Each structure stands twice: as structure tokens, then as C-alpha cells.
């Protein structure tokens, strides 16, 4: 059974981020793997899972989410090797610190050396990131500017949009993958969804043909124009 744990969807799910859980569960199921989505509510214990998903959130909920996760077993489970895919606010709170409202700095979970300060402008628009030679497309909407510590690998190079800082987007450590492409980024990028799913299942996956392939081609063509 592949358990996909969606962390605090009521706090971190502003932009349809729950879609990522649905996509992973369906792509696994259609290949014959049993899968389940566990919605981890704010009053729940963080369960064991093959993958944790963190979404985006507004400033207040993001702070609450960070506080609740800090008090939970989440960090210990990640240090034990559990896998996380995070977007947007989820990306920010995995790092050492983040600033949201005003310039007040909040403590992150410190699972990766990444610091988020408030950017001069909010970044709202299409995002295209080159990941392992392929285009990852999505939409970003955030006010953060994330600086990665020395030795922390970015997820990819930004070709359209801002991502972390206009140059690179997200980060990738053995346990943590993260991008500023929010919402259903895994729906729009089937090849990347399978990369995430393959990491969670611990195996390579054969291609799966769905209408999402057409959507991906259309978005890449639109953004490349």
C-alpha cells in the first residue's frame, strides 16, 4: 500500500494543492499499485507514509502549519528517510527561516539550509523550470525570495518566472523535493509526477498515457512561445 499523506490540507492547500495527492494516487492505481490518500488534519498525528505532500498557504495558516509540524513527529520521520514533496509555502517552511507578513522572521523546520525573505515584489505568473533537461511548467504566486545554503541543490534552472530568486527554483535533497510551482503541478507535468512517484515507490515506472500528456505539450508550447 502506497500511503500519500497530505499535510494539513485545510492550512496548506490554497491553490488546489491537494490535486498533487490525487494525481499520485491515480497514477499509482492505474499501474496496479494500491494507494491511499491520508488527509492529515491539524488535530491529527503525522502518520508514517511513503510520501508527504506540503502545499501553499496564506501567511497566518503557514505560520500555524509550521508550529504544528514542529510539535509533531514530522521532522524525525524525515530524518529517518521519509520522502517529502513540497510547493510554495510548504517549500518555505522546510527551510531554516521564512518571513511573511512585514519582515518578521519565523523559524522554519530547519530540514534544509534554505532561507526565505520577503521579495521586493510578489511573483505571480507562469513558471518554467528546467529539471534534468526537461521542462517543468506551472504557476507561481508568492512573495518570497529563497536563498539556498552552500551545497544545497536547486530543483532546476528558471527559464520563465521567478522561482527562488529568478535564477533557480526549489531544492532537491535525498528526502526533500520542492518547487514554487504551486497547485496541481504534478497534474500538468506527468513525467515529473512519475519521477516523484518512482521515488516514493522506490522503482522506475513505465510511461502511462493520459490526457495530461496533451495538456503538458500545450503548456510547454505556450510558454516557449
Amino acid at each position: 500500500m502506497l500511503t500519500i499523506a497530505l499535510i494539513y490540507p485545510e492550512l496548506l492547500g490554497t491553490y488546489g494543492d491537494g490535486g498533487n495527492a490525487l494525481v499520485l494516487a491515480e497514477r499509482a492505481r492505474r499501474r496496479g499499485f494500491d494507494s491511499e490518500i491520508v488527509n492529515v488534519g491539524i488535530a491529527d498525528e503525522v502518520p508514517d507514509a511513503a510520501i508527504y505532500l506540503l502545499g501553499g498557504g496564506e501567511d497566518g495558516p503557514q505560520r500555524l502549519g509550521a508550529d504544528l509540524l514542529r510539535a509533531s513527529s514530522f521532522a524525525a520521520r524525515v530524518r529517518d528517510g521519509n520522502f517529502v514533496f513540497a510547493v510554495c509555502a510548504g517549500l518555505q517552511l522546510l527551510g531554516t527561516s521564512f518571513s511573511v507578513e512585514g519582515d518578521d522572521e519565523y523559524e522554519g523546520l530547519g530540514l534544509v539550509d534554505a532561507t526565505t525573505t520577503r521579495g521586493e515584489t510578489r511573483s505571480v505568473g507562469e513558471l518554467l523550470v528546467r529539471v534534468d533537461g526537461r521542462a517543468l511548467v506551472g504557476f507561481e504566486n508568492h512573495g518570497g525570495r529563497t536563498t539556498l545554503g552552500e551545497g544545497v541543490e536547486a530543483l532546476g534552472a528558471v527559464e520563465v518566472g521567478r522561482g527562488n530568486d529568478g535564477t533557480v527554483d526549489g531544492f532537491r535533497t535525498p528526502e526533500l523535493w520542492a518547487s514554487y510551482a504551486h497547485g496541481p503541478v504534478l497534474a500538468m507535468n506527468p513525467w515529473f509526477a512519475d519521477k516523484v512517484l518512482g521515488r516514493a515507490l522506490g522503482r522506475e515506472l513505465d510511461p502511462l498515457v493520459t490526457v495530461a500528456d496533451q495538456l503538458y505539450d500545450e503548456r510547454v508550447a505556450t510558454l516557449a512561445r
Partner: protein
Amino acid sequence: MPRETPFRDDVAKGAVRTVNLLSRLASRGSGTVIGGRVGLAIAPGLLTNLARGRDVVLVSGTNGKTTTTAMIAAGWGSRVATNDTGSNMPEGLVAALVASKSRAVVLEVDEAWLSDVARATRPRVIALLNLSRDQLDRANEVRQIAERWRALLADLSDVTVVANANDPLVVYAAELAPNVAWCDVPTPWTTDAVSCPRCTKPLTFADDSWWSDCGFAKPQVLVTTDGGPLIVRGTPLAVDLQLPGAFNEANAAMALTALSFVEVDLQDALERVNALSSVAGRFSLRQWRGHKLRLLLAKNPAGFASMLSTLKSDGVDVWVAINARVADGRDPSWLYDVPFELLRGHRVYCFGDRRLDLATRLDFANVAYVVVTDESALPKSSDVINVLANYTAFQEWRARTKAC
């Protein structure tokens, strides 16, 4: 004696009329926004002068603005100045106030503009329907809007706020206002208010109440309808709407409550609201290339969830049209917040600029779908097909169809 209208305002009002007329003659849309823009540029205080001495009711919120405004306009029973074109920013409001001199005024106002408009028009009543995620690429955070409303209402005297007591963000916005009529209306969508707007701790929802540890809680209601007959400030009203859905009952309750504060007889108003069968082309039967269609506007997750819940599980095809233009919000991520799983058992035809995003969403929901590339090949049916469309897609479908 009314205050003397400055000469510049007269020029501006004339300009609004002239430009609107020219715009309509040139067939450039319905010609309300352009004229208003010219008028505002000539006289920035125009809205204030146009509203002076009139009974102004403002309606704002994420969903139901247009319908509730139409209900108030219909229920009032006299001539009413209203922006029934849906242009709900200052230009559209100016145009509506120039077009009609009626003392009675009801205007739907874009959430982000409410503060400016309320300060300019000094309304007698403001109805606040709900607040949820909508076009997040523009008005990015729902809570920022709640904060702006809160600052406005704490500051504005002589106004009665008619507010939804079941929406914590609306309650947060209105709780400091001196006069509030809290309405207990059906509000299924509270996903955007899980954490307390005051202290950010989790809110608890139970039975017909909700509260936070900090003391922030559902207020005492003056108007009830949730699960029972409508009682507006002690007066029971037999609501029997032509318009479908629980969300329209909520809109009617808010509309009638607003009317009770501008001295309209409630029983008379009720009859007129009950009789309303279509609002700005919504809910009405239309025809197109031999198909019989009912157009339903749904622009965001809460609106879509409400509309989907009104569909019968009769297996009849459903058409859905999605765009992601500026007026829609350019980010269609919200499709994953819509419970499209409710459409299982129907076949869904996907239209609009973002039909592949929709088809992908439906595919993951295991709903049967068809991506429409050739509109002449659509199957003919004697059934009335429900067409759910978001903002600009709805306008397109309204323009291409005719009344039955």
C-alpha cells in the same frame, strides 16, 4: 436643499452618457465601463456626488453578488438604479448612477473596491455575503480583503451591515461595525476559514455553531434560514424561489434583510423575489444550434460546488467551459478544489481555452469526458443541457446563445 452640483460634475456626467452612447453605437460591448472611466477622470469625486441624498445599498462578497443585487432591485418594487451589467468597479458604478436618477440604489461591488466605494457613497446598508478563494492571481489573499473590510466597517458609522454569520471571515470583517444584522444562512464552503482570523489557531465547527479558543465565535443571529423557514428580524417569510439551490436561498435571505432596513414591505418584496427566474442570463433556458441549454455561471471552487450540487444525477450530458483570461484569473489551479467527482455518471464535454486542464482534472476524478475540438459534431439531444462556465466563458456562451 441638495448641495449645488459643481459644474465639473455636470460636465463629467454628460461625458459618461455621451461616451457610453458612442460606445454602444460602436458596438463595443455593453458600453458602461468606458464612459464611467471618462467621468471619473474628469471628476474624481463624481461617485460621491452621484450618491448624495440617495438610499444606497451595497452588496459584496465572493459569490452571489449579482444575484443578490438583482433580488434587492426586484424586491424594492420602485425604480432602482443598479449595475445589472455586472460592472462592479467604480467606473461601472458611476455609469449606473448616471443612467438612473432613482432614489433607490443597489450596487454590487468588487470585494477589493468595497472600502473606496463605501467611503464615497455613504450607503445605508452593506450586505456581505461570503469570502472564499477566487482569482488568487489578482487579489491574492482572502484574508487581506477581510482585514480591509474590517478597517472600513470599524470606521463607518450610519450604516447597517447585513452579514453572513456562518462565514468566519465575514464575521471577522464585520464584528467591529456598530450595527450588524447577522444572518444564519447556508454556507457550505468554510475551507478558507479553518484557522481563526484573530489568533490563527484552529476554528472548531460543530452543529450550527463555530468558535475559536480565543473567544472569536459565531455571533447571535437576527435572521435565520439555515435548515428552517426564513425569519427576518422576527417576520416569518414563505420563501419559494424560482431560482435553484440552497445558495440562492441564502442570497434571498440576505437581500430581504437588506430591504428591511430601507423601509420596504417584506411580504411584497418576498413575492417579487420569489418570482425572479433569471439573473443576467444565468439559470435561463437558451438555445444554440438546436441544443437547449441552461447557462450556469461558476467562477471559483465555492461557486462550482454550489452549482454542481443543483445538478440531478440523471446521467444527462453536462458541458463545462473554462477560460483563464485576466478576468477569470490566469491560474486554473482552483479546478482541483472543485469537487468534480460529483459529475461521475455524467459525460462531460470540455470547452474553453483551458479545456485540456479541465479534461485532466476530470480524468483524475474518473469522470467520463470529451475534449471538444469540433463543435458541429456534438450529439443532439432533447434534454436540457446544463452549461457550467467561468466568467469570460459564460459571457461567450451568453453571447452565442439565444433565449428560448
